[in-house]
């Protein structure tokens, strides 16, 4: 019998051989579910066999995982994510093992069908989709779905059954249901294997970062559809309800992204109580739209728009375009809704303001303004009507060109980092092309250095909005020290100048311990258990962390795990991930920030800029917008970090003892066989 909270089995589909296999979820329980279990499975099924070089996300032997966690579908706020993993075509210059996730109802429906996840390997010889109806799994012909937008594809799959969803009870293996299949699919951007293609579920739930839509496309996989009529067992239902009332009583959220005045907000499955209501039902021109990366995709800086005020409807139509074509809104956007002043630093390359997120659209227009690209240059921008910028006509062609790889869209579809390289302008990584790390553009990751270090040590922008500082500094630091169970206030000294930066500040062993905690937390509680970044971790002001996580999990699973037990599971998955990175070529010498991090202005995109500083024996909250790294400091940090993790400080490779202590001796043996094990 499966552990409560889990379906008990993971679906493995080989699209080359058409073989369908069921794996026992509990065999991978030590990795925590979600991304952790995906990491272990990738190691087992793709790395260890050694049949390819782990270098091409579009290779048939790459795998793509859609995984749930213990909290998925249980009605807990902030717990509806489906984890997505695989080698990422967006990652640059190496296509690292990477991750993304999306909300909606997919994770709940997958578990109601009795599955904890879907793993796909191989490549179909013609377009297909995977259809899961409770226990029954089929690989269906998708020739007629290929070429459809994400919305049309879903509607067509729904039509095929002939069921009046919501009106006719349909009998499945496990019982009757009124519900329609939850579908995750790709649009033209994925079919054409761009590196900026998202997975889209429903109207606007999407996994954008990582470019996993292109991985679907490379496998000739148009969609995965699932409908379930079973149940998710809960070990202690009353305790679960009690926990919800304790941690999320009140409900309604702050009316966030999708829930603005006048709109009817909506949200992911189970996430109503206390959530942000990230979606909406009534927004013109978009369906079920998430209001973050999607709805801000076509917002233009004042500098680039030359003062042209775009009607709001154009922005909203833009949301439709990226949702239907399946384009990663974050990577291809023009800025996002915010700009920050830079004029006080006349040497800074972006004047007079810097957009909060300077991604593909913004960079492209900057190149056009500088006459690097455009009609008559080496890089013709056709079919983009550059003279029509920033009109709706331009926006629509921008989306189409990317999704269909038309003309200049061939380069745009490679993503910002590869566009920079193709233009021969990698020096821009020191200035205006603010690639935070590994092919992902800057995103508030500075001066919150745990975010930036996370980007460096992982394989993408870790998109970690969970740490913010407010109120009395002494109390805030005290709360964080207690809330992490680390009980070390010096973890939170963000001093970045002078000797103190090395002793207790951003280059110290204390910061290394804090970053390690953060990554272990992230690997387990967020990407493996399934808690959403908007709700977890939640440390300050007597927040939910560290009691909510184990309270929820133990009520669901019947286990008796402590908060630190979870961190240890996260550390285990993090080490397997590190082993995959090492097998892909990761080494200490590669883990260096792009140039702009080491220059004044590194934190100019920052949103959470007020951070605690230990001034003598007093804590103060100071504005750290001028914070930037030194190369020596980052080197020291890395040495501390590798030591904290039990990795070789000279290479960054995991040591045998570290892996064996985590119960993954087989990983140590394999690394040793490849001469990739850290020195003892």
């Amino acid at each position, binding site marked *: 019998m499966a552990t409560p909270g889990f379906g008990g089995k993971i679906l493995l589909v080989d699209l080359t051989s058409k073989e369908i296999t069921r794996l026992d979820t509990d065999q991978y329980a030590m990795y925590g579910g979600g991304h952790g279990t995906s990491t272990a499975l990738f190691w087992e099924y793709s790395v260890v066999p050694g049949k390819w070089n782990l270098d091409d996300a579009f290779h048939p032997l790459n795998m793509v995982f859609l995984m749930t966690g213990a909290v998925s*579908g*249980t009605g807990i706020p902030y717990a509806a994510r489906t984890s997505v993993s695989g080698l990422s075509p967006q990652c640059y210059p190496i296509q690292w093992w990477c991750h993304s996730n999306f909300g909606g109802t997919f994770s709940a429906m997958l578990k109601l069908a009795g599955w904890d996840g879907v793993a796909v390997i191989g490549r179909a010889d013609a377009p297909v989709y995977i259809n899961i109806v409770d226990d029954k799994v089929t690989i269906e012909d998708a020739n007629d779905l290929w070429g459809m*937008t994400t*919305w049309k594809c879903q*509607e067509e799959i729904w039509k095929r059954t002939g069921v009046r*969803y*919501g*009106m*006719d*009870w349909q009998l499945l293996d*496990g*019982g*009757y*249901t*009124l519900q329609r299949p939850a579908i995750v699919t790709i649009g033209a951007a994925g079919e054409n294997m761009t590196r900026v293609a998202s997975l889209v579920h*429903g109207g606007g739930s999407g996994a954008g970062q990582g470019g996993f839509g292109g991985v679907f496309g490379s496998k000739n996989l148009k969609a995965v559809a699932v409908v*379930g*009529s*079973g*149940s*998710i067992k*809960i070990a202690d*239902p*009353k305790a679960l*309800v*009690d926990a919800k*009332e304790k941690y999320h009583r009140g*409900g*309604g959220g702050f*009316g*966030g*992204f999708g*829930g*603005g*005045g*006048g*709109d009817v*907000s*909506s949200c*992911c499955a*189970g*996430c*109503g*109580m206390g*959530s942000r*209501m990230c979606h*909406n*039902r*009534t927004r*013109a*021109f*978009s*369906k*079920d739209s998430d*209001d973050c990366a999607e*709805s*801000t995709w076509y917002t233009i800086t004042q500098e680039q728009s030359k003062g042209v005020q775009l009607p709001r409807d154009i922005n909203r*139509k833009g949301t*439709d*375009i990226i949702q239907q074509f399946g384009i990663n809104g974050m990577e291809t956007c023009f800025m996002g809704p915010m700009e920050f002043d830079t004029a006080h630093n006349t040497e800074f390359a972006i004047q007079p303001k810097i957009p909060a997120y300077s991604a593909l659209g913004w960079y492209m227009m900057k190149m056009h303004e500088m006459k690097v690209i455009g009609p008559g240059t080496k890089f013709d921008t056709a079919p983009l009507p550059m003279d029509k910028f920033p009109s709706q006509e331009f926006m629509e062609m921008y989306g189409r060109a990317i999704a269909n790889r038309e003309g200049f869209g061939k380069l745009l579809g490679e993503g910002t980092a590869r566009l920079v390289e193709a233009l021969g302008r990698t020096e821009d990584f020191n200035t205006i092309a603010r690639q935070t790390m590994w092919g992902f553009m800057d995103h508030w990751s500075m001066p919150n250095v745990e975010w930036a270090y996370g980007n460096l040590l992982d394989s993408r922008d870790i998109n970690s909005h969970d740490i913010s500082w407010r109120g009395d500094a002494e109390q805030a630091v005290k709360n964080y020290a207690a809330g992490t169970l680390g009980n070390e206030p010096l973890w939170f000294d963000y001093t970045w100048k002078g000797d103190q930066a090395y002793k207790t500040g951003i280059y110290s062993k204390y910061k290394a311990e804090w970053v390690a905690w953060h990554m272990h937390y992230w690997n387990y509680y967020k990407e493996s258990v399934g808690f959403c970044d908007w709700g977890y971790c939640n440390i300050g002001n007597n927040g939910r962390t560290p009691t909510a996580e184990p309270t929820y999990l133990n009520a669901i699973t019947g286990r008796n795990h402590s908060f630190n037990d979870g961190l240890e599971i996260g550390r285990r998955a993090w080490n397997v991930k590190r082993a995959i990175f090492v097998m892909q070529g990761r080494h200490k010498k590669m883990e260096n920030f792009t140039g702009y991090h080491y220059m004044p202005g590194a934190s100019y995109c920052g949103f959470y800029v007020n951070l605690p500083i230990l001034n003598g024996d007093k804590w103060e909250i100071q504005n750290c917008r001028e914070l930037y790294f030194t190369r020596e400091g980052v080197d020291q940090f890395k040495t501390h970090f590798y030591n904290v993790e039990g990795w070789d400080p000279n290479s960054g490779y995991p040591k045998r003892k570290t892996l064996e202590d985590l119960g993954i001796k087989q990983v140590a043996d394999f690394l040793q066989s490849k001469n990739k094990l850290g020195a003892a």
Partner: protein
Amino acid sequence: MAEKKKFSRRDFVVGSGTAIAGGTLTVLATTTPVAAAEDQGSYPLSNKYLVYDSKNCAGCYGCMIACSMAHDGEVSFSLSRIQMHRAVLNEYPSDIIMHVCKQCPEPLCVKYCPVGACHISAENGNIRMIDAEKCIGCQTCIKMCPQTPHRTIWNPNAKKSTKCDLCTNTPYFNKTGGVDGAQACVEACPKNVLKIVDTLPLETGGYEVDLAPPAPKGGFGGRGAKPKSKPKQEL
């Protein structure tokens, strides 16, 4: 003994205001189920009804999850006595439809149950309930439910029918349920779009009400007027 209000099926369909007002007075002192009264053509009204506002629903499935959790101790969309269906690509407001048991004035599930399992519980405010001990799994109540989709639910594991009892029998609920207690779906709803009322709603449209929850404060990017219509932008 309190007045025992009776009600004909015709009254329900027509929606007599007088009858509705009278329904609020219904309280029975008897502790035994009220037998099917097809011979009389009338039944005591339920004391309480569940109404909803689908136009302001967040589509979170919280009501369904809470229902199956409270009654069955597990999450199941299929066992939930309240059903919310999200047609996520439909135009607002047809993107969400909700179905609740109407606690019918003339409950055909009660009327045609061959063993009296489906009954009107006098001790529980005349709620139409199914006694699991008596249910023989014949599904007559499901076939006879006049609503589409039917509001009586088939539990394939127990091989018995169930239906909304306003949380009277909720072994996994952490509150006292029933007509004088709390309902798991109402408690779980983050948008306050479910409500218990003691007035019989009109059969047509009466259960769908405007509960007009206060609009949340606009978050970033969240402001904007509600469109009068929602033009499609198909590619």
